[in-house]
């Protein structure tokens, strides 16, 4: 059965990185993690090398049987002929696939602490391990991008003040009106300011426009129009989407739409407005009887948006897992992306939607989201095609440190993997209970 499924997986895999003779290979990690820390190299240099792995760079080509070297938490080298420094911690990963760490773009609070995650995160928590097991390395905690740095409090916070939530909802027409007025007034101010700058030298009588009133909502509108912040709003129905897209197009500000379930009904409008969309392919919404055109949810939403040039990120909603064995991995991010593939989105676009596109939306693509030299060494090493339902994360690396090792944790170590046939979990072992919180 498993073999049949595997053959299927191979057919589905565009890259065909997994060869049959590699299946029996047992993953060996050497030298021991402890030894790696006490490296013979200079004390300030911390190396981690992953060898023999198929590297999915996401922003560049896919490299087979390559080595990825991380030094002091950054990707230092990658390719077929990388010299591994002495004392480097090495992961031999023949047959495995390496992807960038996944980025959870929707706000969630299950993986890191509230408030300032740098000070409040329990770095040994079950939530964090669950996230890492699901391949996440960066999450949107409130409005802060945080990393899942299991076992370390260094480098948790990646970026603060990610997106500016706009008060623009169909349920609250009054604030919609206020927001539009604020944009209009601030745009007038910016035009006056431009004129003043132009005439300053020629006409001594021009006065700088008054800006004392620019506070609160106006301040927000000003930052938005100047491109200093990216706005975000939750919109799902055709009507809501049309409204907000026309506004963004008219005033020309950057906008991220969360949800966009009926985006497929107006992909052209969304593309022209220059908005990005965070979609959850498994989300459902019924068609509306009031419109004389097709509405409701479709599995093709992500594909249609992508084909029309709307940048998309895929989110699994607020939770990566729910209680019980069945739900805990079905709600992982790659599963959600696989749904979009089922609706016609190309594989590589689905992977981008949970890595680099998500990082771009959060404004952290300079650090994470793809495998590039100089970026943070945040990556996952998985035992097959990332989007295949049988694929497990074997190692998650955050800031160049092994943050999760499937066979050293009790969440998923008992489940079979095609690359680890010889490994049997200890007899006295049972899967980790998630308790009532999950």
């Amino acid at each position, binding site marked *: 059965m498993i073999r049949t499924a595997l053959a299927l997986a191979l057919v589905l895999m565009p890259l065909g990185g997994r060869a049959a003779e590699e299946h029996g290979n047992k993953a060996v990690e050497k030298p021991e993690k402890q030894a790696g820390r006490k490296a013979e190299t200079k004390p300030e240099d911390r190396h981690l090398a992953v060898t023999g792995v198929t590297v999915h760079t996401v922003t560049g080509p896919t490299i087979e049987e390559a080595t990825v070297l991380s030094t002091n938490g950054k990707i230092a080298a990658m390719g077929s002929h990388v010299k591994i420094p002495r004392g480097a911690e090495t992961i031999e990963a023949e047959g495995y696939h390496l992807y960038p760490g996944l980025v959870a773009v929707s706000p969630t609070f299950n993986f890191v602490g509230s408030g300032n995650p740098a*000070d409040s995160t329990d770095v040994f*928590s079950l939530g964090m391990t669950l996230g890492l097991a699901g391949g996440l390395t960066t999450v949107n905690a409130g409005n802060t991008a945080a990393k899942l740095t299991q076992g370390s*409090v260094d480098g948790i916070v990646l970026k603060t003040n990610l997106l500016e939530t706009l008060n623009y909802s169909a349920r609250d027409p009054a604030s919609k009106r206020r927001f539009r007025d604020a944009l209009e007034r601030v745009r007038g101010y910016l035009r006056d300011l431009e004129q003043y700058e132009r005439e300053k030298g020629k006409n001594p009588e021009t006065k700088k426009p008054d800006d004392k009133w620019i506070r609160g909502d106006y301040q927000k509108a000003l930052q938005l129009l100047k491109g200093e912040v990216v706005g975000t709003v939750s919109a799902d129905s055709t009507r809501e989407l049309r409204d907000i897209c026309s506004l963004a197009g008219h005033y020309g500000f950057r906008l991220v739409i969360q949800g966009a379930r009926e985006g497929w009904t107006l992909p052209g409008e969304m593309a022209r407005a220059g908005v990005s969309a965070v979609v959850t392919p498994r989300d459902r919404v019924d068609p509306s009887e009031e419109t004389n055109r097709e509405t409701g949810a479709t599995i093709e939403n992500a594909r249609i948006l992508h084909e029309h040039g709307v940048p998309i990120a895929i989110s699994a909603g607020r939770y990566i897992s729910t209680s019980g064995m069945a739900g805990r991995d079905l709600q992982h991010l790659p599963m959600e992306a696989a749904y979009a593939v089922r609706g016609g989105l190309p594989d590589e676009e689905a992977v981008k939607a949970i890595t680099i596109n998500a990082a771009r939306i959060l404004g952290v693509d300079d650090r994470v989201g793809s495998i590039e030299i100089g970026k943070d060494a945040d990556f996952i090493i998985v035992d097959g095609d990332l989007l295949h339902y049988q694929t497990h994360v074997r190692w998650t690396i955050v800031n160049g440190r092994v943050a999760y090792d499937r066979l050293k944790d009790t969440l998923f170590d008992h489940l079979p993997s095609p690359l680890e046939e010889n490994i049997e979990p200890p007899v006295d072992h049972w899967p980790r209970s998630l308790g009532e919180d999950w």
Partner: protein
Amino acid sequence: MMETLQRVPRGVLPPKPGRIPLLLGLVLGIPLIAGTRVAGEDDVTVIVRAGRVITAAGEIHEPGMVVIEEGRVKVVGSKVEHPGPIRFVDAPGETVLPGLVLLASRHGLESYSLGGLQAARKASDEVLLEEIDLEPLLEAGITTVAFIPPGSGITGSASAYHTAGDSSARLLAGKAYLRISMDNPGTHKGLLRNAIESAKKEIEKVKKAREEWEKKRKEAEAKKKATPPAPEEKKEPPKPPPPRPPQQAPTPPKKDADSGKAPAVPEKFTPPKINPNLQPFVDILEGRPGTRLVFELSGPSDLLHLDDVLEEYPKVKAHGYTLSAAYSSDYREVASSLGERKALVALAPVITQVPYTVQMMSVPAELAQAGCEIAFLPRSDSPGEYAALRQRAAELVRAGLSRETTLRALTLVPAKLLGLDKRIGSLEKGKEADLVFLDGDPLNPLTRVTRVMVSGRIVWEKEDS
């Protein structure tokens, strides 16, 4: 006196010279209560003769003798000879241990919660020994207890007391250690950082005031030199200024020969007042010894967050750690980190499961093996657990912890955490003669405490003995 009498259990008598009939009884040699009476006489050397004496300093004497003079241990050995008047306290077949030390308790105190920066508080402010029933502690063999201030955050100082004895001499240390809980790092990290930063500002404030004073002083002296000095001043040798009470902020101007002209500068520098809640941190930053910081952690992550703060301030170091959430095996994650720094770690003696397996593990043993010095706390702050403390510790010995480490974890290491290891915690020369008499091996669950001695006096005795 009457109050004390009511408190001590039946069969124990307060030292009173007028008790002639009882002294007579002693002379006649009623062996069981003899010790009680003899111990009351401070001028006489007391020798405890027991089946076995465990010093907790690495020695076991079988049989053992402890020579006590003026309430302190003079000699410990198997065969000790002592000239002069001697009274014996005989305990054949019994084991004598140093008194147990309970390093954090709210026994008998109100429970309430306080948060934030409370570093100036002391537990001794709320301890009224007369109102606390210490019998359960004595019954468990505890001779020293450190009461802790309540709440979380920078809670204030723990105060260590003898559990019996002269009420005037029972306070061993008002500020044994400063208890800081890190159980909510999201709040407590900022609190700690702020406290240290504010202390730095206080130091800066004092420095500035001193510089200002020195400058004014110099100016005044320069002025004085310009004008011819008064003849009578020349004759007198310079005297050190009389000590002033520190509260006297505006120093009255000194009457100089030409005081009418220039505003006088005080001869002695009076530093501006320091916020008492910041004083411990000021002391630490200025390198004054005596402030011990003990951090209460509720999980391994708290240690990493604490280190994250403390690495910014190399002068601020942890004296020790207490680990709450006794049943959490997660502390194994930081065992090596704590071991590397040879930390003093207090925790409950509990055997837990390796998560999601049926394997048992002993976090205390792992910490000890990693290099920590471990101290035991009761599983909960209740009399039942005080009584069960030896038994719980015995379970760990059965699981592989060494006897020596276990007995130290009840005596010497908690004394170290309190900064009192020079006075209590083991039976060594010069230390307080705080002894527990047991009718068997200390780690046998059937063994009971028969007598307790504090500073050379028997203060408690089992009722049916």
